[in-house]
């Protein structure tokens, strides 16, 4: 009964969120539109036609409606671009489960009506279709989700202010965790199990350019009620943190993260992390992350890391290998994971992946087995 009530509450919350988004988006568009047209007119002052790559397009009263594969639909000179991504996945796990289906259909909506304002949202609808061994028929119970929704006020390269719901800037993976952008079908445990994937609040962020690279920072904290929180992994009561990254133009970057989260009992947990990307050759990429401290899910000290190598064997075909170790809080046994796979990327917006995850013992954090996915940016 309680589960039913909780489900009903979740649905009600989603409806409220949906209503807020439906009200908020057009309101913002209306507010900024006059400025938008003025700015667009100014930008188009040289009146020289652009020659953007276009998969197909048509002329409309709003201007040229132009679609480019993997880059969305651009609506004239309004500054509005709508795109997205989706993934189909099948898996056969060592424990015997077999599943497959079409995951979320996610939309990326970007509105940059005037130079210093950027509204961005990621909206998901899913799961669209699920098949499972031992369960009859195709199941579909798509829910609407606001994965991200924020407003960026851009004053200078070094000074930008973000309000809303955004990805928690810890490490590298969590900043681009979607299937079309990663090389394996499963997420590292330290990204999935330790901290809140998103947060609702404000973030001061920017970038400077000393020497031959870009030094970027993010300082953030929650002060709003979580927007459309994940019911399966409730976020920390409050959280705050910082991320610093040095990205060289010569193919490497290093980062450091700090995150503090307040648990429901009022105590604060502290988590530190470091990340690395190294591209020693045009066909080789090495990356890794580590975290240590206390996460938001459980009390107690944890640490974990992953190291991943991607090698382009022949054009468009990649070999991927990843090692992970996760030492959970408390007396639970540490787990070692190995993920080995192949990725075929015939065009930059399409990835076909197949990999096998091996664990040194069965554990609650990962499900070893074979997985395949086809992901598309559109």
């Amino acid at each position, binding site marked *: 009964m309680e589960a039913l009530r909780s489900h009903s509450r979740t649905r009600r919350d989603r409806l409220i969120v949906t209503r807020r988004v439906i009200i908020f988006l057009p309101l913002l568009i209306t507010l900024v539109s006059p400025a938008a047209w003025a700015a667009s007119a100014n930008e188009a002052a040289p009146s*020289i036609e*652009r020659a*953007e790559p276009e998969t197909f397009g048509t002329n409309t009263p709003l201007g040229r409606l132009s679609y480019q594969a993997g880059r969305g639909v651009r609506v004239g000179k309004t500054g509005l671009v709508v795109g997205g991504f989706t993934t189909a996945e099948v898996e056969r796990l060592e424990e015997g489960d077999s599943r497959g289906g079409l995951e979320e259909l996610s939309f*990326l909506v970007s509105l940059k009506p005037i130079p210093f304002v950027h509204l961005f949202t990621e909206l998901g609808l899913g799961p669209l279709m699920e098949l499972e061994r031992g369960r009859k028929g195709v199941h579909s119970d798509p829910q609407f989700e606001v994965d991200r929704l924020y407003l960026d006020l851009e004053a*200078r*390269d070094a000074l930008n202010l973000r309000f809303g719901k955004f990805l928690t800037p810890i490490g590298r993976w969590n900043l681009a965790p979607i299937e079309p*952008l990663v090389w394996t079908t499963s997420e590292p445990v330290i990204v999935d199990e330790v901290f809140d994937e998103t947060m609702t609040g404000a973030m001061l962020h920017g970038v400077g350019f000393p020497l031959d690279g870009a030094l970027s920072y993010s300082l953030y904290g929650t002060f709003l009620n979580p927007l459309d929180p994940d019911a399966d992994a409730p976020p920390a009561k409050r959280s705050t943190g910082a991320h610093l990254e040095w990205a060289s133009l010569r193919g490497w970057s290093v980062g450091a993260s700090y995150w503090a989260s307040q648990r429901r009992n009022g105590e604060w947990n502290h988590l530190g992390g470091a990340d690395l990307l190294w591209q020693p050759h045009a066909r080789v990429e090495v990356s890794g992350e580590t975290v240590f401290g206390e996460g938001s899910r459980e009390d107690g000290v944890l640490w974990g890391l992953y190291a991943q190598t991607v090698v382009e064997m022949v054009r468009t075909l990649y070999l991927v290998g990843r090692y992970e170790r996760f030492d959970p809080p408390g007396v639970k046994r540490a787990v070692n994971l190995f993920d080995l796979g192949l990725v075929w990327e015939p065009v930059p*917006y399409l990835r076909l992946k197949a990999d096998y995850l091996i664990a040194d013992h069965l554990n609650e954090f990962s499900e070893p087995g074979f997985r395949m996915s086809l992901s598309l*940016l559109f």
Partner: protein
Amino acid sequence: MVTRLLGLTLTLIVLAPSSLVGQEDRVAVIVHPQRHAALSVDEVAQIYLRRKRFWDDGAVIVPLNLPSQAPLRALFSRLVLDQTETRLADYWNRQYFYGIFPPATLASTEAVRRYVAADPNAIGYVPVSEVDGSVRVILHLE
């Protein structure tokens, strides 16, 4: 006579390719004449990767590119960005996930020069031979 002809031929062989390369492979990075910024190759790279988005006076930089099949764009990418097309595509996929898009594309170097001449916030690149008084060269690449 034969020696002179041989000498002349050798001189032509040695000099001709380099002079041709000098004319065709020199790229000028141009801005509006009112803009007096001095930029390094690395700073131009940061602009074309859309990491550096503001001029020092706070105006938004409008970087301009040529179509992907243009030989001058390939040369510019090699000289400035020094990354393979695959790497760049991966980079722009990550940026797309945040609603950040590659620089605007214009159809020709003539269009780039005209745009830069008309917009004080624009930056573009053209062959050195196409530079005229309507724009200011801030960097030569070769």
